């Protein structure tokens, strides 16, 4: 296990976060429907969805850990490992690909120091992953840095963009 992995799970659903979850109950006819929102809350609070988070969500919604794990693994946006302080998703699907997305990936890997896709830079600052269409194809190449969509990224403007994310 990596040194980041949590040893004791500190509950996420207390105080405001618990209130936020409970406010969603009346909006859905089943508790299970709160699964995606609850997982988002865990990731928002902790930066990733740990095994402890999986168990806690399961307990809150009356689902087994195995069921929750099965759902988590279906979706690409839940991190099942800790990631860098800034998580960068780059689109390389055809519309962006023909506009040079693969060169943007190379530039990002070089300037973040990540070296390879999916790896975290040695300073813990960045993780870069390649993703499919981000729904911003007219603004090639779009990247998502944490929650910010940054459009028209080129190999050249990568350093300026990265500087905004210390």
């Amino acid at each position, binding site marked *: 296990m990596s040194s980041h992995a949590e040893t004791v799970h500190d509950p996420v659903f207390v105080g405001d976060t618990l209130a936020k979850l409970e406010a969603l109950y009346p*909006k*859905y*006819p*089943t508790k*299970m*429907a*709160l*699964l*995606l*929102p609850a*997982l*988002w809350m865990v990731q928002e609070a902790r930066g990733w969805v740990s095994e402890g988070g999986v168990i806690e969500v399961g307990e809150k*919604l009356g*689902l087994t850990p195995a069921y929750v794990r*099965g*759902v988590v693994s*279906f*979706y*690409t*946006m*839940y991190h099942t490992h800790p990631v860098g302080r800034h998580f960068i*998703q780059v689109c*390389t*699907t*055809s*519309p962006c*690909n*023909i*506009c040079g997305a693969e060169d943007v990936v190379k530039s990002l890997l070089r300037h973040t120091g990540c070296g390879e896709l999916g790896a975290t830079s040695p300073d813990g600052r960045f993780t870069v992953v390649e*993703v*499919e*269409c*981000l*729904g*911003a*194809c*007219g*603004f*090639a190449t779009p990247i*998502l840095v944490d*929650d*910010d*969509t940054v459009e028209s990224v080129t190999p050249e403007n990568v350093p300026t963009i990265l500087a905004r994310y210390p």
Partner: protein
Amino acid sequence: MGYPYPSHPKETPVLSKHFGEVEARTFDGWVARGGYEALKKALAMTPEEIVAEVKASGLRGRGGAGFPTGMKWSFMPKDDGKPHYLCCNADESEPGTFKDREIIRWTPHALIEGCAIGCLGIRAETCYIYIRGEFTEPWHILVAAVAEAYAKGALGENAFGSGRRIDIVVHRGAGAYICGEETALMNSIEGRRGNPRVKPPFPAVAGLFGMPTTINNVETLAAVPVILTRGSAWYAGLSLSSPKSTGSKLFSVCGHVQRPGTYEITMGLPMRELIYDMCGGMLPGRTLKAVIPGGSSVPIMNAADIEDCPMDYEGIVAHGSMLGSGGMIVMDDTTDMVYQVMRLARFYADESCAQCTNCREGTAWTTKILERILAGEGKPTDLDLLLSLADNMTGKTICVLSDSCAVPVVSGLQKFRGEFEAYLSGATAPVTAGV
């Protein structure tokens, strides 16, 4: 308007009229632009009257399949005593498509109003808007707009004092193209893996939470308010192609054009005018090689195919492709078609939910074979093998993601076979002449 550019004279700005106006995002800004009149009108109508008006407008689904919206709404049961649901599909993940995001970002209240009217039309009290997880900014804007609509009394247990309950819940996805498929989307809202369901039963019989459900795309629902305020005849008459393809349509154009963006045109406008006049044509010194007019799941057209092709459902079919989602990908003569067909196949392989053998294996093998052709290790029989795989992936699975992977392969081979053959005969640089 051709967001992010000012409106082009050849555009017909109806849904995009207020793109770029930040105030239009607020409730008061929307009301100042004539917003919420349609919802008030709908609150005084019967469901039958609403459905009849939408039917008369000729509005067809903007999510990809082009199914007549009024007819879809009329499939919902009447006195069944069960809760009904409306789902708004804001998953927008089809490569080339980025029009719904502009509707959500600039005119969230148009969508909210459309969803509310949709609820009235299908006798539902709740609409779930399923928005892809990557749309963070649009999500924040939409959530704020929904909260404001509640605060102003447009939504909630007594919408505009009518005594009718209309709830809208924004539900955020978490990264999965397949959740744009209607039944996968419903599973995802229910807290399940996003696997498409076997149909029948169809959603109008047993959809979300097992209840009668209608699902519509963002652009479809956003068009409903203007149909009610200006009338179905006005809407249908916007088109050069009435009565089959009516109204205006947003096209998001990307790839090798000078001004990529989201353009709103009347149905029936020539494709050439969209590409060459509105989008400014090719980059200097380049020529057009291929167009994928409706998102990555529709057949690739070559330069000859687009001549005289009108932008409407029937016209694009007659010219060998489909209107699909309205996401147009333009490729110039620098494009390596074999590489891009591989990249599209890889998209489907990455996004397959893996329930069906033909899809799971077919998308992966198609990608592998294309990769080996690109690496110069293709076998003479590979092109036939690709076609036979494509055949096995078409019409044989739970949903059409599998078919969609076969589409670029078959059309790519049909239109650009020479490039595939060049790789097989040991050429390293792509050959750029289309057939």
